[in-house]
Structures are given as structure tokens and as C-alpha cells.
């Protein structure tokens, strides 16, 4: 099972590396969206510092959302997904591999680029560290719940817009705790509690998300 998992992750990463544009576009979107907020509200440092964490997190949610329709759609179109479903390995392995490669290709790069945006928003160094830590804990949630959303909208009309409507409300706790941790650090409060809550939400999502994704894949390919 571990072998199948690694094989699937390696396959997805290799495909992504051959089509580097798809991965880079999400990152560029993230940077552009985050910069637009500053253009919208003006360059006052106090204002930017107050909203920096929220802007980074909202832009990360939207960027992750943009990349989600591709999670299963290409495999469905070429018929690979059906073969994976009838493979002897449990469906959970496939879903876990898809989640892992989605995070490696979207969540991880987003988290690593985010401190740059934080600098644009005048965040101090300790807040940047908390921002990075929060994104490293929180972006896996986006992939885990995102897998369920991507599987649910397989074959639906207007899947990419629909995904936002389905998933963004479910992402509310990630946004609240992730941005809240940075705000706490900025006002000199220990951010540990918020990061712990973010971790707890990740744990719950890891139980619920893959289950829902498996059920949804079975429904989509019924």
C-alpha cells in the first residue's frame, strides 16, 4: 500500500513537472491577488500591517481553490481514474496520494512564498514566522477538504465556480485561526493556542475529508 501511495505521488509530481505552467500559474495568481489588495486600500503602513495576515490567507484560499478542479478531472478524462478505482489497493490510498501531491504542488509553495507578501505588508519577523507555521499547518486542510469538493463536483456543470461555493464556507475555521495566529503574534500574545486549534482542525479534516472524497468518487463513477 505504501508502495502504491509513493508511486501515485511520484506520478502526479512528474506530470506536474512536465506541465510546470499549471503549478506556477497558481503561485503567480497568489502574488497578484495579494498585491491587488494593497492597491485597493492604499499604502498606509498601519493599515497594511493590520490586514496583511488576512490578505495572505484569503489569497491562499482562492489560489488553492483555483488548482482544485485539476485534482481528479484530468484522470477522469483520460480514464485513469476508473482504473485506479478498480485497482486492488483501497480507494483511500488513491485519495491520500492525490491529497499529498496536491499539497506538495500547491500548499507547500504557497506557504514558502507567503513571507514575501508578508514583507510587502510590513509584517515583523516574528509574525512572518507564525504566518509560515500557520500556512504549513493550514494548507493541508485546503487539500484534504478540497479533495472532497473536487470529487463531489466531478462531472458537474461549472465545476470550478461551484467548488468555491461549496468549499469556501468550510474553510472558514482555517482562515479564522490562521490569520488570528498572526494577529495574536503581532499584538504580542502567544500564538500557540491558535496554531494548536488549526492543528486540531487539520486532524478532524483528515478524518472527515478523505471519507467524503472516497464516497464522492464512488458516486461520480457509479
Amino acid at each position, binding site marked *: 500500500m505504501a508502495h502504491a501511495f509513493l508511486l501515485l505521488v511520484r506520478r502526479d509530481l512528474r506530470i506536474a513537472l512536465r506541465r510546470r505552467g499549471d503549478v506556477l500559474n497558481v503561485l503567480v495568481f497568489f502574488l497578484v491577488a495579494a498585491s491587488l489588495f494593497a492597491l485597493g486600500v492604499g499604502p498606509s503602513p498601519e493599515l497594511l500591517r493590520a490586514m496583511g495576515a488576512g490578505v495572505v490567507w484569503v489569497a491562499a484560499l482562492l489560489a488553492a481553490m483555483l488548482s482544485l478542479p485539476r485534482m481528479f478531472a484530468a484522470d477522469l478524462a483520460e480514464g485513469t481514474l476508473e482504473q485506479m478505482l478498480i485497482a486492488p489497493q483501497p480507494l483511500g490510498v488513491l485519495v491520500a496520494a492525490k491529497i499529498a501531491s496536491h499539497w506538495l504542488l500547491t500548499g507547500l509553495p504557497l506557504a514558502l512564498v507567503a513571507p514575501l507578501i508578508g514583507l510587502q505588508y510590513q509584517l515583523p519577523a516574528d509574525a512572518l514566522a507564525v504566518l509560515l507555521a500557520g500556512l504549513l499547518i493550514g494548507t493541508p486542510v485546503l487539500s484534504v477538504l478540497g479533495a472532497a469538493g473536487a470529487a463531489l*463536483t466531478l462531472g*458537474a456543470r461549472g465545476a470550478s465556480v461551484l467548488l468555491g461555493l461549496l468549499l*469556501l464556507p468550510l474553510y472558514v*475555521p482555517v482562515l*479564522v485561526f490562521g490569520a*488570528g495566529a498572526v*494577529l495574536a503574534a503581532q499584538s504580542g500574545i502567544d500564538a500557540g493556542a491558535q496554531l494548536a486549534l488549526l492543528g486540531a482542525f487539520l486532524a478532524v479534516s483528515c478524518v472527515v475529508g478523505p471519507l467524503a472524497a472516497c464516497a464522492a468518487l464512488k*458516486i461520480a463513477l457509479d
Partner: protein
Amino acid sequence: MIFSYAAPQAFYPVAGRMVPWFAWLAAILAAGGLYVGFFVAPTDATQGESYRIIFIHVPAAWMSMFLYLVMAGWAALGLILNTRLSGMMASAIAPTGAMFTFLALWTGSLWGKPTWGTYWVWDARLTSELVLLFLYLGFIALKAAIPDPQRADRAGAVLALLGAVNVPIIYFSVVWWSTLHQGASVSLTRSPTMAATMLTGMVLMALAAWMYSIAVTLLRLRAIIRSREGDAEWIRISAGK
């Protein structure tokens, strides 16, 4: 056995007979509740007459949350037992739930203007109610976007359950968020003791909202059954009469 009514064909006429009863009950209870609310209940000492919107607002807020759970319950039943009627029931409940959520938000903001001085406050309850509205809309949109009704029912069921698990987490995260951000400018100072007649009016209106929900859900369920099974012979026979 109750399971014999799980077939749309068997439930269709039963639902038709139940609708008028629940509709009349809703009308009578609402008339009584509105009378008590507007003519019997005393004027509130701190809020004046504007508090009277609670006779609509509170039942709507209750129903909005309760109906989501009922919807998720039917969805779970449909997934477990694979009954066709359950998915239709969930579809029939969703618009009513969304309507009550919207009504709760709307009346809440109308009450907020004279009381808080603003139509919208990012208060924990308002915000979580707004997220609940988004969850309802997502459910309705997902069902509408999947052409095959059976698949739409089951995908919608998975989404409803995912939402039901998340609702408490979202609620607590929003409570946390609003205590973190909100200054002391706004506080919900509802008087702790409520006159008995106010409570009577509210309970009557809540019961009316229940009866209305049942009547409308059953009516919508009949429409869904007809549109999905319109080609079946039994529908043509019952429509022909």
C-alpha cells in the same frame, strides 16, 4: 410498516392528504402568534416596539439551524438505506431552510438598525448564520449542477454531512474570531427575563414555522416526485383523475 411509505409512489398521495392539514395549522398558529405578538405582549422597557420583530426573527433562526440538521439526517438516511425518497426529501427541505436563514438575517438587520444603529454587525451569531446560508446555497447549487438526479442526491448527501460535521466547528471559530476582533461598541443586551406573553407569542410563531415548513416541504416533495417520475404510469393515472 413505515418503510412501505419510502417508495415515492406510496408517499405521493399521503403527502397530498397531509399538506392541507399542516398548512391550516400553520395559518391558525401564525394568526394566533401574530395577534399575541402585536396586541397582547407588552412593549419592551429598553427596546420599545422594535423588539416585536423577534416573533419572526427567533423562529426563523431556530428553523434555519434545525432544518439543516433535518436535511442532513435525510441525506444520511438516503446514503445508508439507499432510499430514493430521502434524497428528494433533502432537496425539498433545502430551499425552505435557505429561506428561513435569509429571513433570520434580514429581520436581524432590520432589528439591528434601531437597536445597534447599523444594519450589519460582524457578530458571531450573524456571521455564522451567513455561513449557514452559504452552506444551503452550496447544497442547492451542487444538486442543480449534476444532471443525473440519483447521483445529485448522493453527492448532495455527502456534502450535507460534511457541512453538518463542520457547522459546530465553524460556529466556534466565528465566536472565537468575534471575541478577538470586536470592540465593546456592541453588546447583545437582551433583557434576561421575558414577559410570559412574549414567550407565548414566540412559541406560537415557532410552531407555525414548523407547520409551514412541513407543509411546504411536502408540497415541494410532490412536485419533485412528479418531475422525476413523470413518465411512470402511476403518476399519469393519479394525475388523470
